[in-house]
C-alpha cells in the first residue's frame, strides 16, 4: 500500500457525510438562537447534540487531517450563512488542537476522542466573538433591534460571559462526547455502523 496516510476519496466523503449531519443539527439549534434567551444555550446545545454524529465520525478517522478539514468546513459554512469571518479563525485553532489531541491517542483512544470533541466544540465560540471584541460597538449597531432586545441580550451577555462561554463550549463538548459515546455503544455499534 502506497502512502497510507494520504486522505483518499472515501475519507473525504466521510467528512462530508458526518459534516452534513453535524451541520443540520447545528442549524436546527441555531434557529432557536434567534430568541435571545437561547443565545448562550447555543454553546450548550450544539456541543451536546453534535457529539452524537461527531463521535460516530471519529470512529472513521484513522488518518491525520480529517478533523481539521471538518472544522474548516464548518468555518466556511458559517461564513456563507452570514456569521462573518470570525468563526474561521476559531475553527482553525480548534481544528488543530482537536486533531493533535486525537492523534496523540493513535486515532483510537476513547478518552482522547471525548477530549478531542471538547476541544473541537470550542470553535462555536467564534460565533460570539464579535460580541466581545467590540462590545460597545456591537450594541450600538444593533440599536434598531430596540432597547428591549439589547437589554435582553446584555443581561445574557455581559463581558465576563466571554470566558464562561468558551469554557461552556469545552465542557459541553466533553458532555456531548460522553453522550455520543453512550449512543455509540447503545445504538451504532450494535447496528453495525461504527
Amino acid at each position, binding site marked *: 500500500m502506497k502512502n497510507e496516510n494520504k486522505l483518499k*476519496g*472515501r475519507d473525504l466523503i466521510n467528512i462530508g457525510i458526518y459534516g452534513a449531519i453535524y451541520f443540520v443539527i447545528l442549524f436546527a439549534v441555531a434557529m432557536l438562537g434567534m430568541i435571545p434567551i437561547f443565545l448562550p444555550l447555543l454553546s450548550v446545545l450544539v456541543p451536546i447534540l453534535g457529539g452524537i454524529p461527531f463521535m460516530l465520525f471519529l470512529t472513521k478517522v484513522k488518518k491525520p487531517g480529517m478533523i481539521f478539514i471538518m472544522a474548516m468546513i464548518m468555518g466556511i459554512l458559517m461564513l456563507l450563512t452570514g456569521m462573518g469571518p470570525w468563526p474561521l479563525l476559531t475553527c482553525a485553532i480548534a481544528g488543530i488542537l482537536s486533531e493533535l489531541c486525537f492523534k496523540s491517542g493513535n486515532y483510537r483512544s476513547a478518552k482522547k476522542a471525548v477530549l478531542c470533541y471538547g476541544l473541537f466544540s470550542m470553535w462555536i465560540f467564534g460565533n460570539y466573538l464579535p460580541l466581545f471584541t467590540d462590545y460597545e460597538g456591537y450594541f450600538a449597531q444593533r440599536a434598531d433591534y430596540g432597547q428591549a432586545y439589547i437589554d435582553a441580550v446584555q443581561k445574557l451577555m455581559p463581558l465576563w460571559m466571554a470566558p464562561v462561554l468558551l469554557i461552556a463550549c469545552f465542557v459541553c463538548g466533553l458532555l456531548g462526547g460522553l453522550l455520543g459515546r453512550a449512543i455509540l455503544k*447503545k*445504538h451504532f455499534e*450494535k*447496528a*453495525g*455502523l461504527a
Partner: protein
Amino acid sequence: MVELKDVSFCYGSDERQEYGENSLSDVNLTIQDGEFVLLTGPSGCGKTTILRLINGLIPHFYPGLVKGEILVDGKAVDSQELYETALQVGTVFQNPRSQFYNVDTTGELAFGCENRGLPEKDIYRRIDDTVSRFGIEKLMDRSIFQLSDGEKQKIACASVDVAGAQIILLDEPSANLDYDATLALRDLILQWRRDGKTIIAAEHRIAYLWDLIDRAVIMRNGKIVWELGKEEKDTLTQDALTEMGLRSAIQEAPSDIGLPLFVEGDKLLRLKDFRFMYHGAKTPVVDILDLTISAGEITAITGANGAGKTSLLSCICGLEKRCKGMLEFEGRSYNRRDRQKLCFMVMQDTGNQLFTESVLEEVLISLPKNTENEKEHAIEILRKLDLEAFLDRHPQSLSGGQKQRLAIACALASGRKVLLLDEPTSGLDYTHMMETADLLKHLQSMGTTILVVTHDSELIHACCTRQYNIA
C-alpha cells in the same frame, strides 16, 4: 476479459481481527469480451461480492481478506487504485436514491468524465451521444429529487454509459423498479448489447433479461453451483428454477393478473372522498370518490408508475393532513386521526420506522398502555413472526426481511386491523418472497385486512386474493 482465479473472500478487517464466514470460496469464472453473464442465486450467495471484487470496491471500500486473482483486462484490480479501475468498469447499483453524487441529471452524466479530467467539449459530445442513443432527452437538466425511481435508474445507466467503460456491472438494478420501468431498463441493456459491451448482472428478478443473456451463473453459499449456456438455460422448466431457489423467468405485468376487486359475500371496506394533491401539482395524485375494497382479504394494489399507489397508502393510513377522506369499516366511520390508530403501514424504507435499541423494546413501546404481562405478550408476538431469536438485536442490524417482520410485529402489538405494505418484496429472493407471502396469509387468517402495493407478480400469485388496479 474478466478473470477470477481461485477467489475466496471474507468480509472483515485486519484491525479488529474479525472475519466473518467466507462470502466466496474458490470461485473460478472467466467472462469474455462482449459476453452478457447473469449472476443469480438466493440472498447472500455471493453474487454482489463478485461484482464488488471486479469493480475494486473490495478490498478498497469494503475491507476483507481476498485470496486468489481478479484480473480485468489482465490487470489485478486489488492492487490498482479505484479511479484506475473506474476507466475499465462501470457499475449501476441497486438503490436509485443513493447512487447520485450530483443533484442534477446532466451533472450526474458528466461526473465520471469530469473526475478523469476530460476536456469539456469531449464530455458534451459524449453526453449528447448517450442521450440520443438512450432517448432520455426529457430527463435532462432536471433535479434528481423530482425523478421517479425508474427515471433515476435510467440516469444511472446513462452516467455509466457516458463514462464509456467497456465492462458494465449491474447490481440488482431492477430491485426498486416497477414493471414498466423494468422493461425500459431492459431496452437500455439491449442497447449495450448492440454496442458490444461486456455485461455482468447480479439479479433476483431474472425474467426481464433471461432471453438476453449468454450465460447464467447460479450461486449458492459463496460457490458457483451451475453454469448454464444460452441453450441449456432455455431448457429449464419453471419447476427446475424454483428448485434452484430462483424467481420466475417469465415476465408478467401485475396489472394483467386480473383478480376481482371484491366478490359476493366479502366483508367490505369503503373509501370515500380520498383526494390528495402534492404541493404545486396541478392534478391530484389520489382521486377516489367512492371505492369498495374487501375487508379480511389480501388485496394487491397495482398500477403504473406515478399512479399514486404509495400516496394512496399514506392517505388511508392518515399520514396526509390534506386528504380529508373517510373510511368506513365494520359499521364505523374513520376520519384521518382515527385511521392512524386503525391502520399500520410497512414502508419501503422499513429502517426509518424502527426507533429503539432492541427488537423487544421496539414491540414493547407499541403495546397499548397498561397491557398486562407486556413482556410475555411481546415475546409471544415475536415468536409468531420468527423473531424470537433476535430479542436483543438492534433493529437496524437486521436484514431487510427481518426489519419488515419486526414492523409487522409492532403493528400486531398495537392492535391494528388494517395492514398496508409498500413493495414488501422489492429486492427479495424467491425464498424470502415466499416467506413474506406465507406471513401475509397467516395474518389474514388472524382477521387482518391487508393491502399490498406491489409490482411483484409472483407475490400476487402466491398470496393475494383481491386486486385493485389503478388505471
